[in-house]
Structures are given as structure tokens and as C-alpha cells.
């Protein structure tokens, strides 16, 4: 059974069909790529999957349940986490607090317990959160920055922190929106190894948007290609590389009289 499946997913903005009748399927434990030229609807697809925008029609089946139309926080609690193309950290909070916030939805103590009745499970839960958050920071090599302001981290580390934060929600499906954007080749390579590592360690299914073709072809097991909101190709990297429609979408059509 696929972990994620969309059926006829459609969303328009005014007269623009940003995503049209999208049907994709991702198997459990897979690593899939979502590519396409600028404005193809990749980020809109992510926003639809995570509930940030609502689809006009269509279904999103996650673990056998239709999640289309649920608010983002419910989607996250069901097990889909994401990062953002333009990094959206909690800039004025510490690096550690950024990750702790992602643990919040599993906290058991109530609002009243946190304000007044701070005995019993409050302390134990707080220690658990801190310990877990530090563990995630450790995996991403961010432990030594834990008390820094998140906005003060260099760009590459902010990207890593965003992934660490997404992981701390304990997802089954992780959506990465251009995780390697703006990184130099060395950083990209490290990041890709890291993504492979966390995928194994946490048994994740990953869907990523990326523009660097070498990178996408290198690590993804299957690839979906969008153009003007329409799925024009899907399959393993070798097939995509040879696909005529994909080449046309990226490079334009050959002159017909040639």
C-alpha cells in the first residue's frame, strides 16, 4: 500500500491552474523527487499536501485516510512534516527552542499544569523534550549552536536546522522543498548523505523538490515531473532523463521543420 496517494488533485489561483488533476503515488520508505521548471506547481503541491492551502477538488490519501482539507497542524500530527523553500525558522528564538517547538504536539501536560501546577509530569516531560531535541541537534551537528539565535546561523546551518526541526515532529513522510538551494557542491554532498542517513535511521519516506539534476538523479528512486501544473512524466531517473516531454519542458521543443 502506498503511504501517500493523490487523486485528481486540483487547485487554481484565479485563472491559473497551478496544479491540475495530479495523481501521484509514493511507496512506503521511498525517496522520490518532484521536479519541473519554475512555476510548474511544485511548491503548490507541497502546500496542498500539508494543508497550507486547500485543494479545489481531489483527494489526498495518507496512510489510507483522506487528509485533503485538514488544517496544517492536523496533517503534521498525522505524520507529514516539511521544510520551506524560503527558510521559515523561528528566527528570534534559540536553536534549541526551534526544535523543542516541534516536539510540542506530543506534550502531555496541560496549559494549567504549565502555569500553576508544575509538579508531577511537568518536569519529566520537559526533560524528555530537551533530551530529544538535543539528540536531533546532535545528528545535524548543531549541538554547539543550541543557545544561539536561530536567525544568526549561517545559511547552510539554517537549512539543516529546518530539517532537524521537521524531524522532531516525528513524521513518517518528510517533504523537503529545495533542501540544497544555495549550497555549494561540497555542502550539497554532505546534505544528501545526511538525508540518506536519516531516512534509514528513522524509516522515513521522503519527497523532495530540487533543481540540481545531478543531485536528484543521483539519490531519488523515482521522479515526478510537473509542467504547468500537469504531471508529464514519472518513473526512475534513467527513464526521466530520456523522456522527450521532460526534455521539451526544460529545453523547449525542437523546431518542427528540422
Amino acid at each position, binding site marked *: 500500500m502506498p503511504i501517500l496517494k493523490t487523486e485528481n488533485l486540483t487547485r487554481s489561483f484565479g485563472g491559473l491552474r497551478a496544479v491540475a488533476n495530479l495523481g501521484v503515488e509514493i511507496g512506503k520508505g521511498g525517496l522520490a523527487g518532484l521536479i519541473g521548471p519554475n512555476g510548474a506547481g511544485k511548491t503548490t503541491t507541497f502546500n496542498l499536501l*500539508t494543508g*497550507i492551502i486547500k485543494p479545489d477538488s481531489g483527494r489526498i490519501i495518507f496512510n489510507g485516510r483522506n487528509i485533503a482539507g485538514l*488544517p*496544517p*497542524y492536523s496533517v*503534521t*500530527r498525522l505524520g507529514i*512534516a*516539511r521544510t*520551506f523553500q524560503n527558510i*521559515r*525558522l*523561528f*528566527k*528570534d*528564538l*534559540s536553536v534549541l*527552542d526551534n526544535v*523543542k*517547538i*516541534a*516536539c*510540542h*504536539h506530543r*506534550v502531555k*501536560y496541560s*496549559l494549567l499544569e*504549565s*502555569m*500553576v501546577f*508544575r509538579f508531577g509530569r*511537568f518536569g519529566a*516531560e*520537559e526533560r524528555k*523534550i530537551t533530551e530529544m531535541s538535543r539528540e536531533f541537534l546532535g545528528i545535524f551537528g548543531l549541538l554547539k549552536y543550541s*543557545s*544561539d*539565535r536561530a536567525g*544568526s546561523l549561517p545559511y547552510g546551518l539554517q537549512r539543516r536546522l529546518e530539517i532537524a*526541526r*521537521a524531524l522532531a*515532529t516525528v513524521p513518517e513522510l518528510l517533504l523537503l522543498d529545495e533542501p540544497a538551494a544555495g549550497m555549494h557542491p561540497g555542502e550539497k554532498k554532505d546534505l544528501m548523505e545526511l538525508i540518506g542517513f536519516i531516512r534509514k535511521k528513522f524509516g522515513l519516506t521522503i519527497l523532495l523538490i530540487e533543481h540540481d539534476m545531478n543531485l536528484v538523479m543521483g539519490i531519488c528512486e523515482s521522479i515526478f515531473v510537473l509542467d504547468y501544473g500537469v504531471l508529464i512524466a514519472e518513473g526512475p531517473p534513467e527513464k526521466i532523463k530520456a523522456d522527450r516531454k521532460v526534455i521539451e519542458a526544460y529545453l523547449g521543443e525542437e523546431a518542427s521543420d528540422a
Partner: protein
Amino acid sequence: MTKFDALAWALNRGWVKVVLITVLLYVIWSLIYGSVNDFWKFNLLVLGINIILAVSLNLINGFAGQFSLGHAGFMAVGGYSSAIITLYHSGELSALGMPEFMIFSIAVLAGGITSAVFGFIIGLPALRLKGDYLAIATLGFGEIIRLSVLNVDYLGGAAGLKGLPAYTNGNWIFFMAAAAVIVISNLINSSHGRAILAVREDEIAAESMGISSTRYKVAAFVIGAFFAGIAGALFVHNIRLVNSGSFTFMKTVEILVMVVIGGLGSTTGVIIGAVFFTLTNSFLADYPYERMIIFSIIMIILMLLRPEGLMGSREFRRRRCRS
């Protein structure tokens, strides 16, 4: 375990520190309060009320980042609800054998809870708005509360309710102010508080981390309103009069000034802001006309030198965040 180990263990427990500091401050407060004349006694009570107001408005405006201008309205709700109890129902309550202290406790609590209920009813729709629009909506709600009260005969109409018992005293003020500061600091230093901060920082990111932004915006608003209601109850039993003229938009501005002077998003900062504002006001009490001019000049200088407020968003203690 040696004596020192035991001491170190105790000092490492957050609540031990809180209790020690509270006791110490209480002793200092009692010494000062007991030795000054009536003018300063009154001003110290006002100071305590202002601390509660500033800390609670800071929860909404500073921590939750929702720019609300309805705080005077919530004060009015608390003030009138408590006055109804001490003025109209104290006979029945004392017939049940309740001492004054109990009656006033019920009145203050009723003020806080009624105000919190109003906060919920107003907050749920209003918090869908953002920035300037939210400010205008909350300002409007504050004025609606005030003007509604003005036209209710049961609440004394324009004259308000006079002759309230002078229940507010130094102890009440100290412990309610301490409670407001401790409860709100506790909240902010918990997972729920971090959720409130996350919503302030980036609503979409917070939702994507599994946090319902509506829930936490409303929670901050309701808790803020609760303490504003308590402050209103203490306020009216200090001046022994509840009159809708006390809760105009200017009252909200005063509270906002304290918060902004101290630093939005810093509890210790806004306490300093409240102390600064109240003391400046009382030192200048002999110059009622020049007061506003002098105060404006102080404000301008402060805004030029420290536009982020005295404390910025930092707390006066170990720094949580290197920047």
C-alpha cells in the same frame, strides 16, 4: 550529603528560588509600604496594579505578537463584576458566614473569570485579524464594553458605582502581582509558551510544526484578559469607585506605554516599565500640567536612545539566547 550540597540542591530547584525571591521581595515591600505616607501608599498600590496590567498586556502584545488595544475594556469588565459582588451581594455572602477576605477573593476571582470569558468571546473572532486591523477591532470592543456599561442603570450609568469597600491593600496587591508575574513566566517557559512564541515568529511554520495557531492566540488573549480583570477588580477597590470614565482608550495607551518602555516580550522589562511609568507619574503629581510635557520628553529621549525598550526582548537574568 553535606549542608552545602543540600543548599545547592535546593537552589537548583526552580520553585525554591521563586519562593525565596518572593519572600525576600515581600519583606522589602512590607517595609517600604509600612513606612510611607498615605500618598505613597496609594501610589504603591497603583504600581502593583500597573505591573499586573503591563505583564498581562505583554503576554498578548509581546509574547503572542497580537497587537491588542482592548485592555482597558477587560479592566472594566473585571472592575464592574467585582463591584457587583462586593456592593450588591456582600450581605448574602456574609450571611453565609464569610469573612471580608473571602468575599473579596470571590469578587476578584469573579472579575478575572468574567473578563476571561469576554476575552474568549471577543478573541475568537477578532484574532482572525492581523496587525492594524486587530488593533482597531480590539480598540472597538474595548469602547463597546465601556459604552454599554455607561447605559446600564444596574451598573450606575454614567455616575458608576460609588462607595465600594476599600478592600485592596498592600498584601493583596503584592500577592496578586507576584501571581501574575509567576504564572505568566511559567507559561512562557513551558512547551505551551514556546508554542505561543512560535505563532508570533511565523504562523505558517508554527502550524506546520503541529501547533494550532488559533488555539494559542486565543489562549494568550484569554489569560491576558483574566489578569486585566483581576487588575480591574483591585483598581476599583482601591479608588472605591467604579466608573466607566476610568477605562477609556487612554488607559490602554498608558499600559501600552509601560510595555513599550520596558520592551515588548520581556516580563522583567515591562515590570521595570511599569515601575518607571508609575513613579515618574507620582513624582510629577504636583505639576499636573507640566507632567504630560515632561513625560513626553522622557518618552522621546528613551525612544531615540533605546527604540526596542529598556530591555528589548531579553530577560533580566541568565541570557537564554546569544545573538
